[in-house]
């Protein structure tokens, strides 16, 4: 049975698209047929992060409007088997996403894939609500700072009240907390909320903690999901998160500040 996972946050710029790309890729690496759907109609970032922006011909809205078939719009990832991307349209706005249209597309995707990862736009308006409406599970991406945590709390409330599962009175959407851009040094300095603080406020299970790292930015700019970088702590942290999503038990890593060794400092001290 295909699972629909929404990656959402309320707040913008916290790492939804980066996380969608990493987790979608991770699921496909583990042998699950996966499609990542870009719900951010009008802005279209996922294809950049996935490095397939030059291969976009048809998009999500074309499929909804019947101007293209799903096969024409789906882009096959060149690095990872079993991974596809359904890009968003850049020339339309969120009103192009009708409930019936989205439902029909997702229904068709369910027949072909094990996991459908929905990359939500920021905000709590129509685009974000449409991205989470059909979800079975939700990954709430949060940065360790108060406004991001508040917005995540808000989006959790919307998941509980406005999703299809909530409306139909089914089992509620399963929620996961993904803490991104985490810097143990800044937590120690009291400049950031700690993992415990965020867990205490949001009270949902912790899926993973992704350390703040230059590797993430580099990966995005190169159009290569950071999870493909085994060397990077961020990549390893995403791998752990995907394993946990699939029900495996992995201890959380990279939560403590790492003392830089003498040689590291001599060599310019790149962390991660």
């Amino acid at each position: 049975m295909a699972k629909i996972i929404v990656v959402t946050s309320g707040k913008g710029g916290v790492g939804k698209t980066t996380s969608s790309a990493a987790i979608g890729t991770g699921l496909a690496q583990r042998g699950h047929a996966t499609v990542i759907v870009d719900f951010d109609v009008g802005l279209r970032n996922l294809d950049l992060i996935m490095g397939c922006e030059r291969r976009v011909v048809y998009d999500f809205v074309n499929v909804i409007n019947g101007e293209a078939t799903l096969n024409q719009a789906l882009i096959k990832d060149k690095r990872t088997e079993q991974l596809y991307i359904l890009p968003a349209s850049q020339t339309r706005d969120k009103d192009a996403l009708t409930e019936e249209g989205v439902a029909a597309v997702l229904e068709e995707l369910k027949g072909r894939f094990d996991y459908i990862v929905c990359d939500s736009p920021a905000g709590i308006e129509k685009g974000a609500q449409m991205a989470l409406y059909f979800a079975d599970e939700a990954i709430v991406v949060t940065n360790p700072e108060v406004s991001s945590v508040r917005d995540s709390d808000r989006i959790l409330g919307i998941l509980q009240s406005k999703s299809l599962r909530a409306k139909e009175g089914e089992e509620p959407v399963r929620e996961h907390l993904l803490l991104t851009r985490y810097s143990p040094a800044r937590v120690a300095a009291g400049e950031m909320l700690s993992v415990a603080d965020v867990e205490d406020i949001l009270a949902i299970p912790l899926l993973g903690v992704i350390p703040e790292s230059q590797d993430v930015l580099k990966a995005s700019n190169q159009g290569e999901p950071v999870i493909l970088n085994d060397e990077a702590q961020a990549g390893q942290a995403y791998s752990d998160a995907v394993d946990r999503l699939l029900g495996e038990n992995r201890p959380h890593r990279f939560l403590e500040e790492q003392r830089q060794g003498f040689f590291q400092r001599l060599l310019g001290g790149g962390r991660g």
Partner: protein
Amino acid sequence: MSTPDFQLKGSTVTVVVLELHRYTPELFPAQLEERIQQAPALFQGSPVVVDVEQLLIPEGQLDVPGLLDQCRGAGLRPIALRGVGESLAEAAADSGLAILPAAASRQRRNIREEAEPARDVEIRTEQRAAPAARPTRTITRPVRSGQQVYAEGGDLIVLAQVSEGAEVLADGNIHIYGALRGRALAGVHGDAAARIFCQHMDAELISVAGHFLLSDGIADTLHRKPAQVALEGDALSVEPL
């Protein structure tokens, strides 16, 4: 601008209503006295609203100053007139009492059609509290930022947390077993006996029957501790549990 020396607040009080059906100046004081003697402590010096809506005689025949004098003579303190029609408006205004709009009750009309009541005057206390049956609403999942939960006519039990920016309201008491970080308003329809109980007091705002306190009004010693909130007189008291 200086801070004012007072605060204007909305509040609900229980008051005695003297519902007048007929008025015979010679008989009224004795009837009133007889009724008051049944519970002198309750009525002595008690504020009273004189309701003339059920009056079965033409309003014009009512001697308002005389009636009020007789009430005062019996130890009552008339504070307002209710259900005053046009023909009495002037006399009512002259009395210096407050004029209240007619009570909006469905049963009103029927009384007029019934056989004449045995007495001219009937005194009853009117309670504006919640109805007798108080269903409890139980919430098991967190109340998140931007959500609002209202337990109408009864108590509210929240088994999870109430997040910052969330609001829980009840006509009765509120019990919160997770952290209270948002707003909790008990007795929103004026039940001054309502209370708030919580395991982790970190509220943005607490209120009972319209009297409220912001987070900075709550003692630091109770911060994130089990606490209960009750209305004492005109002020909220927050005590450890």
